[in-house]
């Protein structure tokens, strides 16, 4: 159970003067400017949920993840994980949290993967039997065992992310934060990552919060999405509900035999080029079948297809990059 209550975070960005004089001045007085990265964010997450945390670049996703995992302290507001304030009881609460940053590793560059895990085993006080058991389970999902003797500095990105995922799960946390875990991964590696998230969620009831720019991750994993932009919450809810609410239309793509495209009162012809026309219609106004019938009465149709508004459109609408 995660409760985020009115958290704000502003960064102090230090203004550096130009050149040598600026550097000297910087030693004495440091003018800083506040950048509001997260503004008054609140939400609750139930145990066992998989929540997709999405928003454009610079929206404040990573900042929020860092606050939820105890790395950054919010400027104001509070975050409770399983009922305890993470910043007051950081040492105890992080025992129950796993974190993976896709672009940064928690593995020790100088050690072999196995040695790195061994270090974590001591840090999180995991007993040997439990550790072996977790490793076996992880091996079934991610085939990690062949990598154990490999130095971390020699691993490929995909191998390293696998290593990081296992590292985050060794102490069997009840909450797992993944910040852009699929960044830079190939199709196969993405597939095993998604399999990993699903299995961990189903078998151990682990709560997963992930940020991603890969819509495939969202569609395949998340029951719920939270959209933020400019540090503010924009949407929070079930994926289909949000789609129905902010993009309750379908698109009919029709290919005609000639270039004339008829119009229809209950839909909008928003695209017409050569033989192809696209109509946007509300589900409540007209059915696809009725629309095709009406159109075919006016011109000869060669081919049709229907596009549902997908998460793609949702995100663009929510980000304000597409007008409704």
């Amino acid at each position, binding site marked *: 159970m995660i409760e985020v209550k009115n958290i704000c975070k502003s960064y*102090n960005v230090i203004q550096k003067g130009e050149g040598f004089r600026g550097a000297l001045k910087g030693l004495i007085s440091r003018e800083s400017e506040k950048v509001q990265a997260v503004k008054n964010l609140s939400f609750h997450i139930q145990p066992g949920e998989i929540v997709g945390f999405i928003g454009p670049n610079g929206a404040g996703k990573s900042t929020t993840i860092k606050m939820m995992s105890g*790395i950054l302290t919010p400027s104001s507001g509070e975050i409770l994980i399983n009922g305890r304030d993470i910043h007051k009881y950081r040492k*105890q609460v992080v025992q129950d949290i796993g974190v993976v940053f896709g672009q940064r590793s928690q593995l020790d560059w100088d050690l072999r993967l196995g040695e790195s895990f061994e270090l974590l085993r001591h840090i*999180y*006080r995991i007993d040997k039997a439990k550790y072996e058991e977790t490793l076996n389970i992880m091996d079934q999902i991610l085939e990690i065992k062949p990598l154990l003797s490999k130095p971390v500095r020699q691993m490929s990105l995909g191998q390293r992310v696998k290593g990081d995922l296992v590292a985050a799960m060794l102490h069997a946390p009840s909450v797992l934060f993944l910040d852009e875990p699929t960044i830079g991964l190939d199709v196969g590696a993405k597939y095993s990552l998604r399999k990993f998230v699903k299995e961990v969620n189903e078998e151990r009831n682990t709560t997963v919060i992930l940020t991603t720019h890969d819509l495939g991750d969202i569609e395949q994993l998340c029951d719920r999405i939270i959209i933020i932009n400019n540090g503010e919450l924009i949407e929070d809810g079930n994926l289909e509900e949000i789609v129905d609410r902010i993009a309750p239309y379908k698109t009919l793509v029709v290919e005609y035999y000639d270039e004339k495209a008829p119009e229809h009162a209950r839909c909008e012809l928003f695209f017409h080029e050569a033989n192809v026309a696209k109509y946007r219609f509300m589900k409540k106004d007209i059915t696809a079948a009725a629309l095709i019938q009406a159109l075919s009465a006016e011109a000869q149709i060669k081919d049709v297809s229907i596009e549902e508004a997908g998460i793609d459109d949702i995100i663009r609408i929510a980000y304000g990059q597409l007008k409704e």
Partner: protein
Amino acid sequence: MKIYSYVCKMQILRSMTYKFNVYGNIIMQTIIMLTTSFFWKALYQNAETVQGVEIGSMLTYTVISSCISVILTTNVEQRITRSVEKGTIAVDLMRPVNIFAVFFAEDLGNVVALLFQNLLPIIFIGCIFIQVPLLASGASVLMFLISLCLAFFINWLLAAIFGMWAFTAINMHALLQVKRHLIRLLSGSMIPLWFFPEWLRIVLEAFPFVYLYQLPLSIYIGKCDGMSLIRGITIQLVWLAVLSFIFYILQKRAARKVMIQGG
């Protein structure tokens, strides 16, 4: 506790496998030892003793001073600076540990590794080219070790307090160099304060640096005993208490101010 001793052990292994910087420091210390010993030999040409200290003791002072510099190696400031620069400080903060205890364990591990990689070669070189360190008495060696231990903690606390600046992403590389050389200069590690003018000596004795090098060194060569020894150790204890207090207050606030660079 077990966590930190494991961290320390891992650090020993790591330092043993990656011998960065080790040879550089041996060469550096050799140069310092040689030049200071030439200086002493020149100074003592016309005198048996200066300020009640013989040439043999002064050469011992020089060799042991280089040895102490190995024991007083700290990495905590560099460690914080680099972690903040690279953003890996996030990893340190997401674990159920006290980060300063981890830094201390790592520094301890480093020093243990340096005992073999640095201290032994330096003693060896010192014995061959300068002088086999003389022992004043068994008791003075014991008191020396106690004083050195205190110096180790004082030195580490100074480094940690200094290193906390780096949390707010100040570029510290140049400052760290300045601090290192300033400490060696102001602590009497090369030229003891009894050669300095009276007023400067009094000023420097008000800072903690003298208690890092000169005090344990004078104890070793037998120049500091009786009342002055008790006084010296007491001042060390006071500094230890004061710095521990400052450290305790600051470390609570420091972690809150951490800058995490990069997405």
